[in-house]
């Protein structure tokens, strides 16, 4: 399916050093449109650092990034957003004190001109917010409902809907499900599925194999700043993936002592 497509983003041998800390030691990943690429790995493996080089937060120390075949050089997150790379960070997605509609259009406010003055077009913003949220299966009390009154999963969904609405070609989700309950997680996974079907490339970070298996088309496992391998859906079993993530041996010992419950 993906073999005929060209990759949307090619990350080649990305290295990132923070002083003496080598967070990434040459990671390569290709992301295809309409495909959900899962990035797995334990805490500190370098997943967040890796996607931050994709979204313009960090400049890679070494390595190349190609976006739609052209080499990329983002200076600021804003450049990445303009190019169509949207990132939903785990806890920085939304401002709880502000309304859903103000959050939705934060940084992209629609304007209406009255004479020489430009005003925030609240009517349009509210309308779009309500309809986009409805598409994602979330019923708001009103567009002026504060984000703080939404559940964690609903907040993630607002952030995802926002990214999609503003024309993201690549949607990066950094551990969107790690703080969520079962029902909220499945809501977010369903949202990811909807987004992928619209032809958007999704990079989905998680350390939960079951969440990855639910929506992933391709799986890359990171460990200590290196790729342990990339596999397509159907080429790998959840058990193998789990084992790869935990670094084989350690898990085997653990499994022995815990009686196979991990």
């Amino acid at each position: 399916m993906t073999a005929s497509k060209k990759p949307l983003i090619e990350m080649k041998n990305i290295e990132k050093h923070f002083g003496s800390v080598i967070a990434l030691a040459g990671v390569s990943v290709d992301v295809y449109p309409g495909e959900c690429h899962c990035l797995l790995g334990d805490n500190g493996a370098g997943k967040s650092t890796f996607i931050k080089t994709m979204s313009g937060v960090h400049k890679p120390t070494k390595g190349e990034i190609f976006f739609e075949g052209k080499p990329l050089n983002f200076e600021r997150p804003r450049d990445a957003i303009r190019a169509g790379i949207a990132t939903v960070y785990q806890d920085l997605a939304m401002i709880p004190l502000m309304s859903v509609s103000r959050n939705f259009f934060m940084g992209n406010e629609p304007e209406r001109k009255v004479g020489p003055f430009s005003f925030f077009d609240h009517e349009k913003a509210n309308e779009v917010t309500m309809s986009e949220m409805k598409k994602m299966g979330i019923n708001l009390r009103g567009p002026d409902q504060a984000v703080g009154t939404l559940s964690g999963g609903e907040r993630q969904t607002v952030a995802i809907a926002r990214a999609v609405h503003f024309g993201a070609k690549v949607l990066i989700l950094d551990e969107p499900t790690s703080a969520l309950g079962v029902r909220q997680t499945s809501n977010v996974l369903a949202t990811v599925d909807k987004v992928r079907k619209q032809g958007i490339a999704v990079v989905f970070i998680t350390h939960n194999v079951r969440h990855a298996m639910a929506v992933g088309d391709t799986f890359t496992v990171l460990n200590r700043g290196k790729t342990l391998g990339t596999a397509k859906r159907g080429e790998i079993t959840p058990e193998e993936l789990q084992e790869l993530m935990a670094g084989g041996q350690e898990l085997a010992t653990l499994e022995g002592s815990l009686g196979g419950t991990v």
Partner: protein
Amino acid sequence: MSDSANVDANVDERVKEMSSFRKSLIRPELGGICGTVAVFVFFALFAFDSGMFNSQGILNWSIVSAQFMIIAVGACLLMIAGEFDLSVGSMIGFAGMMIAIFSVTLGWPVWLSILIAFVMCVAIGALNGIIVVRTGLPSFIVTLASLFILRGFTIYLPQTVERKTIIGGVRDAAEGDWLGAIFGSKIFTGLFQWFGDIGLLATFARGNRAGQPVVDGIPMLIVWALILVVFGHILLTRTKFGNWIFASGGDAQAARYVGVPVNRVKILMFMFTAFCACIFATCQVMEFGSAGADRGLLKEFEAIIAVVIGGALLTGGYGSVIGAALGALIFGVVQQGLFFAGVESSLFRVFLGVILLLAVILNTYIRRMITGEK
């Protein structure tokens, strides 16, 4: 997976229907509205005959409230953007002193003196902002330093150039000055004279102002206050920039990630606060005809108190300019009302403390209802 994700598209049984009356009540300004009503009821009951509610009395507390409003608007927008400015009071003293030194000591035209004072204040405001965003230090500390530095200069400069701490003669210098008039004159004087002539307003019976109405116009100070409140309110609630102000104070990092120029917003708000302080100072200097080294003392706290009574969150991201204006009104009415009622002036602080506490408790309660905060 898909069935659990399938939320019913039309009804959510967990959302309680809220009456539109209740909904319209629950707004950030509610604390300020309640406080305003309470204060007016209180003084109408206990000080109605004191002269507080005749035309002169109304003008009296309107002027004091307008002063608070001018600095409260700046402090409000800055607080919503997530920062404080403790140098407002010193800035007021400094700006006034600069105008007096330029116009009286150096003999420059008043309009030029005022313009230069504004440029200096806004530049100092920008410097405050730049230091805060560059160093990441709390604005509390940075502007505390400015508080001392500016106050120090305000005392030092007039002593050096004039050997005194109060410079007078500004009113004479401002005679006929167009910009001085924009801050120091009164409007609708014809209308008020007519009110006096037809008996709608009391007139002076004796003295050199005999026949003139006791209130002869609306001071420009009040006009400035209303302009700033309307401007601040529209900027905050009806523009893109207003959304950026909320976002910068609500969560600067989240705002940056979606491309909001947080640093620019914060620096501009520091500049605006300084601009408001300079308006306050200019009106005051034009009214008194002099500048004093101790002018504006403690004004930064009064501004912050008005803003907090008005429902703003001290940590930023939430608040209302209308609320801050009501907070300023409460402040002015209480201060002057107790004076009219002949209450010992030290009790003003007791009263103020009680109002502050009640308003903040009510505001916290309302805010939690709106934002779902814990």
